[in-house]
C-alpha cells in the first residue's frame, strides 16, 4: 500500500515540476503520524500510511490554491475536497488526489496509540474515497446503516440535562480556535468570532460567549461538516465537538437528504429548497 502511494507520488512529482505532495510521515514520537509536504521526488521515501494517519490533510489545499498539489486522502478527508470544490475554493484540475481505502484509524495521540478505533471511525459509513485520481486499495462497500447512537444518547436525556451537559463542555473552552483552524470547512477571511463591529461574540471567555461561539461554529458547518473529526481530535480541553456536529449531520440528512462532500456538484441544502417540503413545524 505504502509503496503504491510513494510510487504514485513520485511519478506525479516527476511530471509536475514545482508541485507538492501532501501526505503523512512519521511523527517525532516515532510511532504516530504527522503531515508532510514533499516537493522533490527523491523525498517520497518518508511517506507513510498506517492506522495513525488520523489527520485530514484537505485543509492544507486552501494554502495551495491554484498550485499543483497532490494529496493523500482517506474517504472522510476526500469529502473535504468535494466540499471545497463545491464552494468554489479549489480547482479540481490543479489537484491530484491519491485516495486511500481506509481501514479505520486507531485512536492515536502523540506518544500513545490506544488499541481502539478512533471515535469517528466507529460510525464511519464510507470506506472508499468520494473523489480520487488514483485509488490505493480495493474499493470497500459502504456501511449501510447509520449509527447515531452517540447523538441519540444526548437526545434521550432531559432538556435540563442537555443544557447542563453542554454548559459544562463549553465552559472548558479556552477559545484557542484549534477546532476552526484544523477544519477544512473553516476558511472565512475573517471568522465571525473575530469580527468587532458588529460584535457577534465577545472576546470574554465566559459561558455566554463560549456558548455562541461553539453554536455559531457548529451551525456554520451544518450540512457542511464532512465528519473528519479533526476539531474534536485537536481540542486541547476535550470538548466533544463532533457530538454537536453530528446532530446537525443527522438532521440535515433527515431533513434535506443531504450528505456533504459526497460529490462536488450537488447544491448544498442552504442554496436550494423544495417548495413542497415541510420541515418539522412549530407545535
Amino acid at each position, binding site marked *: 500500500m505504502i509503496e503504491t502511494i510513494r510510487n504514485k507520488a513520485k511519478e506525479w512529482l516527476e511530471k509536475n515540476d514545482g508541485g507538492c505532495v501532501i501526505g503523512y510521515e512519521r511523527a517525532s514520537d516515532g510511532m504516530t503520524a504527522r503531515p508532510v509536504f514533499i516537493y522533490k521526488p527523491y523525498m517520497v521515501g518518508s511517506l507513510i500510511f498506517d492506522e495513525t494517519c488520523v489527520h485530514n490533510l484537505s485543509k492544507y489545499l486552501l494554502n495551495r490554491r491554484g498550485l499543483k498539489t497532490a494529496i493523500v486522502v482517506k474517504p472522510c478527508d476526500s469529502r473535504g475536497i468535494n466540499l471545497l470544490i463545491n464552494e468554489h475554493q479549489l480547482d479540481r484540475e490543479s489537484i491530484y488526489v491519491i485516495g486511500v481505502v481506509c481501514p479505520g484509524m486507531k485512536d492515536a495521540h502523540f506518544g500513545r496509540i490506544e488499541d481502539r478505533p478512533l471515535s469517528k471511525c466507529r460510525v464511519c459509513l464510507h470506506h472508499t474515497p468520494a473523489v480520487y485520481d488514483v485509488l490505493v486499495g480495493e474499493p470497500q462497500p459502504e456501511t449501510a446503516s447509520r449509527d447515531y447512537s452517540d447523538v441519540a444518547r444526548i437526545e434521550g436525556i432531559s432538556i435540563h440535562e442537555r443544557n447542563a451537559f453542554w454548559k459544562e463542555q463549553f465552559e472548558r473552552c479556552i477559545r484557542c480556535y484549534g477546532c476552526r483552524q484544523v477544519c477544512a470547512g473553516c476558511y472565512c477571511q475573517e471568522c465571525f468570532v473575530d469580527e468587532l463591529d458588529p460584535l457577534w461574540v465577545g472576546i470574554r471567555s465566559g459561558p455566554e460567549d463560549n456558548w455562541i461561539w461553539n453554536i455559531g461554529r457548529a451551525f456554520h458547518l451544518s450540512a457542511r461538516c464532512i465528519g473528519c473529526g479533526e476539531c474534536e481530535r485537536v481540542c486541547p480541553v476535550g470538548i466533544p465537538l463532533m457530538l454537536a456536529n453530528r446532530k446537525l449531520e443527522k438532521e440535515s440528512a433527515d431533513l434535506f437528504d443531504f450528505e456533504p462532500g459526497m460529490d462536488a456538484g450537488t447544491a448544498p441544502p442552504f442554496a436550494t429548497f423544495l417548495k413542497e417540503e415541510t420541515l418539522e413545524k*412549530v407545535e
Partner: protein
Amino acid sequence: MELTYEPRIVGFLCNWCSYAGADLAGTSRTNYPANIRIIRVPCSGRVDPLFIVKAFQLGADGVLVAGCHPGDCHYSDGNYHTRRRVGLLRPFLDYLGLDKARLRLEWVSASEGKRFSEVVSSFTDTLIKMGPRSS
C-alpha cells in the same frame, strides 16, 4: 411580593407579510401580551440564524421568526430558505439544551392580524408555562 414571570420575546418579522399582519392586529385593536419586541426585516430570509442565537445568548426567552406563507414571499423564495435555516436550527438548539419550543417559525400574512395576535398570545403562554430559562 410575588413577581409574575414576564418572558421576553424577540420577533423578526418580514416587512411584507408578518409586519403588516402585526400592524393589522393593531388596526383591528386586537389585544395581545406585551412581551414581544419586533424587529422589522425586509424578508424572513434576511434573518441570519446567528441573530437568533445571539438573542438567546443575551437572554431572550423566546424568538419568533415570521414571514409570508410559503409561495407568497414578496421576493419569491425567501421564506423557503428561512424554513430550511430555522428548520435546522430548532432541533440543534433543542439538542444543546434550549427547548425548541422557544424558537418559533410562523407564517403570518398581511391579512392575518388576528392570527398574529394568536401567535404572540400562544407563544407567550407557552413560555410562561415553561418558566425562565435555566442558565
